[in-house]
């Protein structure tokens, strides 16, 4: 099964507002993401995960387009 993982280390600015600032250290890019997207990224910070387990195809596609995750 293909696995999803982060493209690099991330930092977050989260003040429980429903949206979160996400900083991608390798690219230097800063994104505004949803709280759901942050949860997904935090899950992937623990290690690669199966798309079936993550159950968030649309969100993964969005995060991949933003350069934050990729599918092995």
């Amino acid at each position, binding site marked *: 099964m293909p696995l999803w993982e982060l493209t690099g280390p991330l930092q977050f600015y989260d003040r429980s507002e429903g949206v979160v600032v996400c*900083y991608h250290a390798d690219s230097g890019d800063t994104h505004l993401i949803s709280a759901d997207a942050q949860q997904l990224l935090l899950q992937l910070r623990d290690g690669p995960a199966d798309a079936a387990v993550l159950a968030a195809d649309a969100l993964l596609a969005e995060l991949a387009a933003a350069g934050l995750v990729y599918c092995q």
Partner: protein
Amino acid sequence: MSYARLADLGSDALGEQLSGDGLRLRVGPYCYAIQSPEAVVARGLATLYGDFPLVPAGGFADFHVTFGPTGWRQRLRGQLDFFLDERRPFGSVPRSQAYAFLEWGLNWCLSVTMNEYLKLHAAVVAKDGIALVMPGLPGAGKSTLCAALALRGWRVLSDEHALIPPGRREVVPVYRPVSLKNASINVIRGRDAAAVIGPVSNDTHKGSVAHLKADLHPDSHCRAPVAARLMVFPEFQAGAPLELRPKGRAESFLFAAHHAFNYSLLREAGFDAMCHFIDGLDCFDLRYSDLDAAVARLDALVGEFA
């Protein structure tokens, strides 16, 4: 004021310094050395920079600026070139637009250097010891609002650059005259007959441009940082009712970072500096059409935090 000011120089001495080694002006933490043989530059500086502290001739300068014709072709065509050392931010400009380009050039000097600060593209004003940071897209009305606040007793820390020392919730003052464009020039002139406005440059790529002498507050040239407590994103919209509504810190972070001069350049240090800075602020969107109403609302807002 105990320091020597530009106004203390006679017009002859001002001309000699501009034509010689350079007029050395203290602008916040920096010194500009300006050389220019142009009469409009001397006139504009005398009008707008009269209360600026002078740095002794020959002393250290952070920015060595020259602005004048660089050869016979430029002389014949009435064109001028701006240089920071050997760097040129823009091509030759017509003499009729010289003053606007001088101010833009002086902005550019700071925008592309001095990365010891996180530099947001924002006006910064202060009242009762509280700094209010106003990032804004071009045309959002931040400079007009900044000018109106100055005429109502607020201190202007900058019309263009919010200088934030990393790890602090303060803004370092770097006051220069406030830039006004097109209709804003007469709007501000009409609010105060005593308002001092410098040379008008017509037909620039931004239309007509002039600058307001806005160092009206007694602390205008104090160099101590001022605590920041508020961030307001102004948006002028003709006919719109006044609306001030809270804005999330994350959203404010992103907007301010994307309109910063060096957030990306500073990389993680920029992210850390923004996190710390934004955490200390209450953020708002301000939509306005009536300047008096906007000024009154900001007066009341800062009163709530003083």
